[in-house]
């Protein structure tokens, strides 16, 4: 087994708001290997996007990365100066966001915006940058690349915007592409096209993708390994096949069982009772215990540690300990 591309250890990112400290990411460990699709799933507010932003060192005020280490090819991203991290951002690690309209600049053509990164990172001239942009637009399979390069984002459809985001992000051939809910804002048929494109690019470039999603279908179809997050913590991590075949954490089991698939029609579905706890004041002990049907006394008092079940399958639950 080769060394991981990215090794995140004990990452803690807190937001200091007027109402209290939001422990958005609270001690998260995982690795991303080379040439793999690593998925991060969880519900709203579980800290999956903050984890991604922490890797990019793009945490906005009042957030702060308190603790932890993130080794990218042996370099700790948290120790780098602002100018050093700028050389990695976009060049080595790139990120696609959920809503492309918020990430594209409305007053520049997409060709211009795509050419910016190669110009900055490879010292290209404007003309070469533009040529590169047109080439990239062709690569993400947008018709009439020359014409498209001269259009502004508002003219494009949602799918086309997301394609231009992908073009922008692969422009410097990064080793790691972070995709934060890349298909949530588009329709299913477009989603299928985009995922197909991402997979194709990944095969060709041998890059790793960190896919953040709440859709288990996408995880099953594209992922190699998956981590399930709940309330700022990773509760279970393992290969996609393993997690779907034998989910061990009650939360993972609950999530998989509440998909309305395979149930007799119109029958009551399984569901997880209650709602996600307030991240300012998470429950003590295991954060899932108020909603868990297997809770025992120990769950309320002691925070479960990650237990290794072999084959890289880790779970943080008191009940899975042997």
């Amino acid at each position, binding site marked *: 087994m080769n060394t991981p591309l990215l090794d995140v250890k004990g990452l803690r990112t807190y937001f200091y708001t007027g109402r209290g400290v939001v422990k958005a990411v609270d001690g998260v460990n995982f690795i991303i290997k080379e040439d793999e699709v690593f998925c991060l799933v969880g*519900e*709203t507010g579980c800290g999956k996007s903050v984890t991604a932003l922490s890797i990019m060192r793009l945490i906005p005020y009042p957030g702060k990365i308190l603790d932890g280490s993130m080794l990218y090819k042996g370099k700790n991203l948290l120790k780098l100066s602002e100018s050093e991290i700028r050389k990695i951002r976009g060049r080595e690690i790139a990120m696609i966001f959920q809503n492309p309209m918020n990430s594209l600049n409305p007053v520049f053509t997409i060709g211009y915006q795509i050419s910016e990164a190669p110009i900055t990172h490879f010292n290209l001239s404007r003309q070469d940058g533009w040529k590169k942009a047109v080439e990239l637009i062709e690569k993400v399979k947008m018709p009439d690349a020359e014409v498209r390069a001269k259009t502004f984002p508002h003219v494009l*459809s949602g*799918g*086309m915007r997301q394609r231009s985001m992908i073009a922008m992000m692969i422009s410097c051939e990064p080793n790691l592409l972070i995709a934060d809910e890349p298909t949530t804002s588009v*329709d*299913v*048929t*477009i*989603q*299928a*096209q985009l*995922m*197909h494109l991402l997979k194709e690019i990944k095969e060709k470039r041998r890059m790793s993708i960190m896919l953040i999603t*709440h*859709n*288990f*279908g*996408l*995880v*099953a*179809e594209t*992922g190699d390994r998956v981590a399930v997050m709940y309330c700022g913590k990773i509760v279970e991590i393992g290969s*996609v*096949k393993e997690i*779907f*075949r*034998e*989910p*061990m954490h*009650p939360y993972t*089991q*609950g*999530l*998989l*069982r*509440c*998909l*309305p*698939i*395979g*149930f007799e*029609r*119109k029958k*009551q*579905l*399984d*569901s*997880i*009772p209650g*709602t*996600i706890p307030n991240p300012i004041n998470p429950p003590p002990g295991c954060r899932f215990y108020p909603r868990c049907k*297997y809770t025992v006394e120990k769950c309320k008092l002691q925070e479960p540690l990650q237990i290794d079940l072999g084959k890289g399958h880790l779970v943080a639950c008191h*009940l*899975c300990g042997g």
Partner: protein
Amino acid sequence: MGRILLNVEEFKKYFPVKGGLFSKPAYIRAVDGVSFQVEKGETFGVVGESGSGKTTLGMMVLKLIEPTSGKMYFDGIEITSIKGREFKKLRKRMGIVFQDPSASLNPRMTVRGTLRRPLAIHGVKRGEEVEKRILSMLEKVGLGREHLDRYPHELSGGQQQRVAIARAMILNPDLVVHDEPTSSLDVSVQSQILNLLLRLQNEFNLTYLFITHDLVTVRHVSDRIAVMYLGKIVEIAETDELFKNTMHPYTVALLSAAPIPNPEVKSVKRFIVGGEPPSPINPPQGCRFHPRCRYVTKECISQEPRLLEVEKNHYVACHRSCELDLSSYTRDLWRIMEEAIAGSERMIIKT
């Protein structure tokens, strides 16, 4: 066949769009000639992608938008022409639940205020009775007395949607339109809300018009499903029939685009369509799906297919529905999808 509660005939809605001073006025053909019937007590699902006109359709059924043309019968009464006070009597028998509860609930009204409004408007004014009905409705949607004086921002997304459901159902309606009731919610809350909707339907014998883009959800709740594309219905069938004997190429594309939550089957036969839905201002001539369809013929480009009953209770608008056999795509997909969860029955922690 049961009693028909809702009968929609050739509904059309064109929204004018502003052009230049001298240009011809253009229209967005949001809904362009849609007919269907809904029986009492059934759930009629409407699926389609954004821009297919499904939300406009739902709004027109409740007369929240006036149709450009077309007729609608509610319980045998022609209601497109009824206005004002007369219509108010019928309005009582219809409810609607919108997609985003944080937008559809008034942020300045407590739960009690929100639920009191429909009662007050329809003449239930006696204090005790109002209070009693509000409380019993709240209990039915899984909330309690403690939520009465809360404002929407003090509730979670799931609780807000429960209040919206309570508001839609407090007048004991016959028909409830659900416009994407679960898509803004998290997975674990989605299933709670779906369970609630099914339970309420059983209890009050409600008729649902269920609008969504999520095929997995619509399959679970619906008896019959209509698939919409660019303002037209392309296929209507009973749920199992639609999934097992899919006939319209667009339905197949939609079904096989849904990712399957089973990693063991990475290589199923897929039917991925290229391109994107065209603009509803200038929809393509002939069959509206023809620019994206791989089975296109000359006839498809020149002539618009009509929605015909190809098999019993199975309507398709496709020129080639009889010669194409597309069911192999979806039948396999569906079998795999059902197997995926059969395996998960084993998922119980060994304590």
